[in-house]
């Protein structure tokens, strides 16, 4: 039915222009203009103008303007942050996926671990920062731990939910077709919960990008978070904003790639295909 509804406008008005791209840039353009207007009305304020941020971004990427400690550091910092984001994400997933399946399927494990996890979950990553630096020292190990922690819970919780909410009918169907109870996990639970786990992974990776700045407050020398912290101490707000923009775009592209991957792998699922 939805198919019919979607194709209807095409049949009736084949020449209609698709307004979607326009819709998508309206808000960014308005925000940018508001920002520009604010800085134009208050020259010499603490907030740099969009053009200053643009220049800072150019210098971060290619140098040749300021030639200071920040020039040409965009790529190395981006690579440093991205490797922490993906490394910590993979680590978090490697623990959270199997753990989530165990908690979801085995009552014993659930009763033993769930209370602890529910209490740990609301503790923000920022609160872990001091302890993490004591446990893992100043530097990249701490950053790695904090980012992994940030992406751990969404993966875990979505995995638990996914394996617990497999439709009971599918177990009956598999059993009447000859699947033994011991084989239900690989034959039914695992494939049926893939979309839920995928949602968890997507959220987890997104959160890894969110907490990278906190993670890189641990005294690491490289990375977008470290760059933002350095710039902040030097009151280079245009670099802070340029760093924010880079994280935003990197996180967005990373999420988009995962989304496309999901569409390909989960074509069978009405939510993803």
């Amino acid at each position, binding site marked *: 039915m939805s198919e019919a509804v979607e194709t209807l406008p095409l049949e009736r008005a084949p020449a209609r222009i698709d307004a979607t791209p326009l819709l998508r840039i309206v808000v960014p353009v308005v925000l940018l203009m508001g920002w520009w207007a604010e800085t134009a009305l208050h020259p010499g304020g603490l907030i740099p103008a969009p053009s200053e941020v643009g220049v800072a971004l150019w210098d971060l990427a290619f140098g040749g303007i300021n030639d200071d400690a920040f020039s040409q550091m965009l790529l190395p910092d981006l690579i440093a942050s991205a490797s922490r984001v993906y490394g910590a994400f993979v680590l978090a997933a490697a623990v959270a996926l199997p753990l989530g399946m165990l908690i979801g399927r085995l009552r014993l494990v659930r009763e033993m671990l769930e209370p602890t996890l529910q209490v740990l979950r609301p503790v923000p990553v920022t609160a872990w920062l001091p302890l993490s630096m004591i446990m893992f020292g100043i530097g990249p190990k701490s950053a790695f731990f904090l980012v992994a922690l940030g992406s751990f819970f969404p993966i875990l919780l979505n995995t638990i939910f996914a394996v617990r909410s497999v439709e009971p*009918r*599918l177990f*009956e*169907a*598999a*059993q*009447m*077709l*000859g*699947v033994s109870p011991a*084989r239900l996990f690989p*034959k*039914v639970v695992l*494939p*049926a919960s*893939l979309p839920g786990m995928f949602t968890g992974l997507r959220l987890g990776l997104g959160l890894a990008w969110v907490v990278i700045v906190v993670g890189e407050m641990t005294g690491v020398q490289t990375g977008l978070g470290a760059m933002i912290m350095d710039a902040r101490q030097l009151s280079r707000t245009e670099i802070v904003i340029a760093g924010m923009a880079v994280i935003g775009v990197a996180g967005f592209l990373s999420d988009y790639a995962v989304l496309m991957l999901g569409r390909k792998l989960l*074509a*069978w*699922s*009405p939510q993803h*295909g």
Partner: protein
Amino acid sequence: MIPPVLSAINAGKIYPGGIEALRNANLTIAPGEFVCLIGASGCGKSTLLRMIAGFETVTSGQIIVRGKEVTGPGPDRGMVFQDYGLFPWLTIRKNIAFGPIARGKSKAEAMATADRFVSMMGLDRFADSYPHQLSGGMKQRVAIGRVLANDARMALMDEPFGALDAMTRERLQEELLTIWRATGLSVVFVTHSLEEAIYLADRVVVMSPGPGRIVAEERITLERPRDVSSPQFNDIRRHLAALLHADHAREAA
């Protein structure tokens, strides 16, 4: 006398908490017989079917399928659910191959079997589609196909056409009869439509709620294909409706 494929002997079901879903059900089904269970909701028809399938345990009496007491679900008793129960992550072909693979057939053999039943059920165009891309009628064809592909000796059908529109339902009823004749399958078919029961069955088993029990059995000897508007058909319908409603009247009184 040919031994029955199925016999329920004083089968009963009391759920924890004391609700009696079925009391003293006695039923035998001959090989190749098509039996419909009919009754109002709460009459235990689905419970009886699910006990035959092995999804529910009996709390009294026993259910014997080809000489052995039922202790759990098994591929000799294929079930067709009203809500299909297809595996959404598998294509239609692989849904049908699922049973043969689960029972240890080689992948090549299972796929060849699946292809045969894909064609038999008229699903060639959809072989590589996923269940969510199919209409209800098509999904139910897949569900029937996978039971047949798994060499089930008995098909247990729980209001399989209840969610379909009238046109689709009539076509599938017709196709089911064709398959049943061709395969010699025994069928236990739960429905709440008298017309459907009389149209399909060799024998209609009338059930009644409070507690669920079998109240009557009627052998249908009309020639197939049956004409639902013939006077003979209507005589049977009237007779069975009276049996169904006699009980309602007693409940109400």
